[in-house]
């Protein structure tokens, strides 16, 4: 048998299973706890290594350790926006119901991670820059990203009809993802003009592995946390959207 066809077939079947709310619900009953467990294990290990094993920074002392929350949050804030835009495009092109659920459920999680990245960035800035807010390129981009998330959420909730809101939000996410790199580039350029405090650049490739390992563990753990939250929210949304359908009613009867 041609292995390529088998792999393709597998993805085809997975796609069709995920496309149906009922199948998605079944799969997510299994994946949600797995993601939750992986999140707990990875972040526990990352926290331990980051707080107790990694050496203190020779310039910043212990205050650098906030990196283990700040950087993974910042990574995820971008990653989740990409997921939203990809899911939005899939929903618009193939009219896949579940893709819209991913778009809508991802937005608040992404906004929360963006806010976390901003707050930790500001907390970090206080001892290092001596100010709570610095017009630094990364922080400014992050702030704009927060507004993109808030805009997407506001748009969805503005519509009375859920389906119209889903499609409008998907369009906005796709438009946003085209503009995000341009925003990033323009803000970089703008901040290079800005002659204020010297811009602090975190880590870089020179980071020793005792510092880097916990960072990667935390990043992976946070990603699983996103997956966990996403599946949990999506489960709720699917049950709510399909509350009039047969299988949800059967499910409720089973519980009672």
């Amino acid at each position, binding site marked *: 048998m041609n292995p390529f066809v088998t792999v393709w077939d597998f993805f085809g079947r997975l796609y069709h299973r995920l496309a149906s709310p009922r199948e998605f619900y079944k799969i997510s009953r299994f994946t949600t706890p797995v993601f939750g467990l992986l999140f707990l294990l990875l972040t526990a290990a990352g926290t331990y290594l980051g707080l107790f094993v990694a050496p203190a920074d020779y310039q910043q002392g212990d205050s650098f350790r906030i990196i283990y929350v700040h950087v993974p949050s910042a990574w995820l804030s971008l990653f989740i926006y990409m997921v939203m835009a990809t899911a939005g495009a899939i929903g618009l092109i193939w009219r896949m119901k579940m893709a819209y659920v991913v778009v809508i459920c991802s937005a608040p999680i992404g906004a929360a991670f963006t806010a976390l990245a901003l707050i930790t960035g500001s907390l970090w800035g206080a001892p290092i820059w001596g100010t709570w807010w610095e017009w630094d390129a990364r922080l400014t981009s992050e702030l704009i990203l927060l507004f993109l998330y808030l805009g997407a959420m506001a748009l969805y909730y503005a519509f*009375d*009809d*859920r*389906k119209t809101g889903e*499609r409008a939000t998907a369009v906005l996410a796709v438009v946003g993802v085209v503009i995000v790199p341009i925003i990033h580039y323009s803000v970089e350029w703008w901040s290079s003009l800005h002659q204020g405090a010297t811009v602090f650049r975190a880590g870089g490739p020179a980071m020793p592995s005792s510092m880097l390992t916990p960072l990667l563990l935390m990043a992976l753990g946070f990603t699983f946390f996103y997956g966990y939250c996403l599946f949990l929210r999506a489960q709720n949304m699917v049950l709510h*959207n399909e*509350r*009039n359908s047969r299988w949800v009613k059967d499910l409720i009867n089973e519980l009672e």
Partner: protein
Amino acid sequence: MSAHEISAADSHGHCLAANNLACQRGERWLFEGLNLTVSSGTCLHVIGANGSGKTSLLRMLCGISRIDRGDITWQQKNIAGNDDYFSGLAYLGHKDGLKNEFTAAENLEFYQRLNFENDPAKVDEILAEMGILACADLPTFQLSFGQRRRLALARLLLVPRPLWVLDEPFTGIDQAGRNLIERLCVEHLAAGGILILTNHQSLRSGPLKPFLNELEL
């Protein structure tokens, strides 16, 4: 909900079909599993209580509203992005699509140009036929509701189109106007056109009777 089936004997000419159509508004399914076939020379009267999805069905057939499930075909080809279908379709909804800033004649001329024609004399002819030639050069906001409705209906006559979809065409129109529209519809049907309309009263006693099919939602 049961499946509706409407077929006409005439297999020649044009044919609009909907297969397993479903419409969801909010969390409610207005209709599900709707099948219909309408062919040349038939008038389909969509009947139903307020909120039963008559307007939604009409807007789906015109490709304006989203289709939640199922598909619609014209001459066995899906209507989405089908220019052949849209050049043969005339739709009149609750909103008349007229600009207040333009005169009656200008409004009609714009739609005429959209249909690849430019013939002011014909516009006057159509306005005369609809009984509103006197208002031709008045700004549309000065027209009465009935006059506006007649002007919107005048669009149907700009170019011959095989499919007319009319949502409540008789609302706000006097008896003479109603007779006029019914006469135009009969001419359209007799020439092999298709008419899909909603109306609160039964059409069984009117001049459309010989062509009539009913669909209850």
